[in-house]
């Protein structure tokens, strides 16, 4: 049983570019949450998708957008990249959404913006 998978593993972009990160949830999970982890900090909640809709959003600008597909996989898109967007982006899946349900994390995508 595959756990949460994310692609790509690493990514290098330049300022102003756009990036798309991908996540496949653990089998049986229908909810995907995205987090940004800057160096030396804990993960910060970006948003959560359930039933193909954004259910809740953290304190991130509209440059951060997402999508969930019928097979529950998800994408995170970031437009007009800034140097400060350099971070580890983590995807977590759970069953039924909500902060009460154990979230399983993927290994993350390391984004570097030059």
């Amino acid at each position, binding site marked *: 049983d595959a756990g*949460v998978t994310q692609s790509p593993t690493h990514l290098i972009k330049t300022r102003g570019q756009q990036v798309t990160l991908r996540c496949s949830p653990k089998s049986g999970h229908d909810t995907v*949450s995205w*987090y940004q982890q800057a160096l*030396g*900090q*804990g*993960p*910060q*909640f970006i948003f*959560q998708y*359930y039933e193909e809709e954004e*259910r*809740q959003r*953290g304190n991130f600008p509209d440059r951060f957008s997402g999508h969930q597909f019928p097979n529950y996989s998800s994408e995170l898109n970031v437009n007009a990249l800034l140097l400060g967007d350099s971070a580890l982006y*983590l995807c*977590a899946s759970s069953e039924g*959404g*909500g*902060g*009460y349900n*154990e*979230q*399983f*994390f*993927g*290994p*993350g995508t390391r984004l570097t913006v030059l």
Partner: protein
Amino acid sequence: DQQVKQNSPSLSVQEGRISILNCDYTNSMFDYFLWYKKYPAEGPTFLISISSIKDKNEDGRFTVFLNKSAKHLSLHIVPSQPGDSAVYFCAASARLNNDMRFGAGTRLTVKP
């Protein structure tokens, strides 16, 4: 805003001794708390959780204590093993929200 704080960036203990990791929170709406462990190049892994209706939850060598009046929780690992060396994140969530708030993490090193 840092609603969940882990004030100790690092902790070093001897194998076999107790490791105590601390976490403080400011939002009184939080009613579910979790600890995650993270190894390099891997995503955080769920370790143990506690609901606000309890003050203690135990799972093998791991025990989490919750002091609601002080808005403080701690993770005890007894006995500590070298394989426990990792970064530990405290996280909290509220019934009305779907997000989790994480602390900055504490890097635990268990020396043989």
